[in-house]
């Protein structure tokens, strides 16, 4: 609402022009690959006394397979057709230097057949990756334990295993002039609304930047509201969440070298949904979801309410609690606002420090932060016991939100509310809440309203909003996603 809409960075006209294609030659290649220590240029002679030159980057290729699939068969080749001797079907002929450069950097081997005067390319990338592990950011007790890795292919495999249908389409794009990062757009053809697909295609193809190391950077270029604190793309490293989202009519964007996949279009309420919601019994899942929403509200407003009540509205405090509050605050040197601000800032420092430290050290830090600082602050008279308790409750509450980016937004909202509550009391919190709601109402994700199914109102989607209704009653896909196939079950023709 209050923020100016960011403009996507348009391609420069100079960039848009296709560079002139230069013919490939050994000299030109050596010139291009100058000062690169990991470049190997080897010459070999075949049984046919034919000279071949192999060029590759040893850091990018699988050297064991190089011998097995290329060098040995080529040396043993009795005839002039080297092309046929190579023991892999993925052999390409190229002519331009630019093409050769690109393919070399993706882990391919260039082979110069001197007699035939042709350049062959054999992709042989080394599969350097970690194994599939459990998700650390979205841990669940019950359910699938696998999570995405930094490699694109295994990630796509994990999704395809869950959705073994030919309608699951993948579209590859390259982003980043320096990083040359591969981005894969995934959707179910005939189910996902084509409008979303075309918007996503347009946005990805319009990305013009040099480096992309993470999906959040891709999201930053694709979202419509750059200055908002709320994530407009869901980021997850869980294949089951991706598959479920695809099945509902959303699309996913996989980015090379990151285990986090983008899901869009999302709403504010998707950030409160956990995969466990669909595993637990529906009353239990509904209860947990309500608790999640409540804890989000609590984490954002509890400390500001404390400041508002102790600064402006002593009348609203029940008498019994007022006894406790006056008792605990009677000897403090700070006003409630400064007391809360200092404690919350210290807590944020501890939280940030514990993230950056090794696991064993972070445990020590937890002890120091929790016991020493908390206890010492009270004993030294810097903070009241009541505030320490409230800070603990609000911090624990903030961890209930399944989305990490949302928990970070929490903190900022909390600080904003804190400032408003110190100036205007509960009225300030109400104003802040109105501003946040207005902002949420104005946000979009892939140009779809961020606050649906509340605004715009889709009453049928409320079955999976604040509560998680029984799965047997969720017969249709969410209306707010406008899927091409409304029903989730096979209907008689």
């Amino acid at each position, binding site marked *: 609402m209050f923020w100016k809409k960011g403009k996507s960075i348009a391609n420069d006209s100079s960039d848009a022009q296709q560079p002139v294609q230069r013919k490939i030659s050994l000299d030109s290649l050596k010139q291009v690959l100058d000062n690169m220590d990991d470049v190997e240029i080897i010459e070999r002679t075949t049984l046919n006394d034919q000279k071949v030159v192999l060029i590759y980057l040893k850091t990018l290729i699988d050297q064991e397979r190089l011998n097995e699939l290329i060098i040995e068969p080529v040396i043993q080749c009795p005839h002039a057709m080297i092309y046929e001797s190579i023991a892999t079907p993925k052999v390409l002929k190229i002519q331009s230097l630019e093409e050769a450069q690109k393919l070399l950097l993706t882990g391919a081997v260039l082979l110069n057949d001197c007699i035939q005067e042709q350049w062959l390319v054999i992709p042989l990338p080394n599969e350097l990756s970690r194994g599939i592990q459990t998700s650390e950011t979205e841990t669940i007790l019950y359910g699938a334990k696998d999570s995405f890795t930094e490699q694109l292919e295994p990630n796509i495999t994990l999704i395809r295993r869950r959705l073994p249908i030919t309608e699951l389409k993948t579209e590859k794009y390259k982003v980043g002039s320096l990083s040359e990062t591969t981005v894969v757009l995934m959707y179910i053809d005939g189910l996902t609304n084509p409008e979303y697909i075309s918007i996503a295609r347009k946005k990805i193809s319009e990305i013009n930047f040099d480096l992309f190391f993470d999906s959040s950077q891709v999201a930053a270029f694709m979202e419509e509201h750059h200055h908002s604190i709320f994530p407009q793309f869901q980021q997850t490293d869980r294949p089951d969440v991706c598959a479920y989202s695809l099945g509902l009519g959303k699309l996913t964007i996989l980015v090379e070298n990151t285990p986090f996949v983008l899901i869009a279009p999302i709403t504010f309420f998707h950030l409160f949904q956990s995969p466990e919601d669909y595993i637990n019994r529906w009353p239990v899942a509904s209860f947990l979801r309500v608790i999640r929403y409540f804890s989000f509200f609590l984490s954002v407003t509890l400390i500001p309410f404390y400041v508002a009540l102790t600064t402006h509205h002593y009348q609203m405090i029940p008498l019994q609690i007022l006894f406790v509050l006056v*008792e605990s605050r009677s000897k403090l040197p700070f006003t409630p606002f400064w007391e809360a601000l200092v404690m919350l800032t210290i807590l944020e420092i501890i939280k940030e420090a514990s993230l950056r430290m090794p696991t064993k050290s972070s445990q020590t830090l937890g002890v120091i932060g929790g016991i020493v600082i908390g206890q010492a602050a009270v004993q030294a008279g810097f903070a009241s016991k009541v505030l320490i308790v409230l800070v603990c409750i609000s911090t624990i509450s903030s961890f209930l939100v399944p989305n990490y980016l949302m928990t970070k937004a929490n903190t900022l909202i909390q600080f904003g509310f804190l400032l408003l509550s110190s100036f205007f009391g509960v009225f300030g919190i109400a104003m802040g809440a109105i501003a946040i709601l207005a902002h949420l109402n104005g946000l979009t994700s892939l140009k779809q309203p961020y606050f649906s199914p509340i605004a715009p109102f889709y009453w049928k989607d409320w079955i999976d909003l604040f509560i998680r209704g029984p799965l047997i009653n969720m017969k249709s896909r969410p209306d707010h996603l406008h899927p091409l196939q409304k029903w989730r079950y096979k209907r008689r023709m």
Partner: protein
Amino acid sequence: MRRKKMLLVWGIFVSLVMIPGCAPFVENNTIEDIAPVTFWSISKGEKGKIKMSTLVPPLVNEPKSLLTLDVDLLKQGGKDFNLRYYRELKVGQLRLFLIHEELAKQGIFQLINTLLTDYDVSQRMYLVIVKGNFDEYINRQAKKQENLDYYLYRMLKHYERKKQGEMTIVNLHEYKNKLFSPFSDPVLPVFTVAKDNFTYEGTAFFSNDKLIETVTSTEDQIFQLLDNDHYLKFFPIPKLDVVIGRLRSRVNVDLDKNLSLVTINVKLNGRIEEYQGNKNILNGNELMQLQKEIETELEMKTTDLIKKMQELKVDPLQIGTHTLSPFSKPISEKVWLAAWGKMKIKVNYQLYFEALQNTKNNY
């Protein structure tokens, strides 16, 4: 464009501030800087003044002392308390307003108005009539018992809840509603201070804003059944050597058209809690006889109570509201009180006892 947007945002912000009437200069209400008082006790002072008392510090665990002032005006008292104490005494947590019986007899309309027009004073504040010297009592007890003022408030809060059925508890809002309504008269609880005791005595009837009568013991309990809670946990009738318990009443008032007769039908459900009379209550006939005796006794007492109300020209039972109907002009308060004074009374009680348990017959 951007400037216009900013102007719009500021316009909305200023409007939001102005709409609820937020003052640009806020008072300092930081809880460690103030002393929120929990009660004010007022009685007749010398030379027509009001004697005001409160306990300080109100909440903090420090030695307490009673501040007493002779003032002309209530707010003046509030101001002068502040000059005597190092923290500002705030009335936002005022929970009890104790009025001495003598002062209540003179009329408390102006006092109530002052309280009602104060933004800070909660409408849920309890009003209590006190007999005896409350200041002396609180001064003595405060030394023995910490936070006595708070426990007095807790007691009233406890009995305010529905189905407690022991005493009349009235807050400022309820008192105001009855005071300003043409067909009802306010009531307040009466507490007596005697040495170290603070005892509930009964219900005070008010004619407009003046206390004119206090009903006690059996009459007060009948009043609880007819109007207040319609419930009594125990109702001892010493004359008949019986205690009825868990007594729930359903009252039906029937007013004839020419305002000459009021019929009050009361259905009572309860159980015999204790009986020390000569009847064998395990015998059906004798139980019926006892039931009839109780009904007669209650009818007689209720008739006496209502006749007393007629003589005093007060209507705390709000019988006058039964003259109202949707398609006719309401009669004036004067006409109603004139009719009310001459009206014939007919009271019928129907008593239903729960089956007796754990008696010889059951084994």
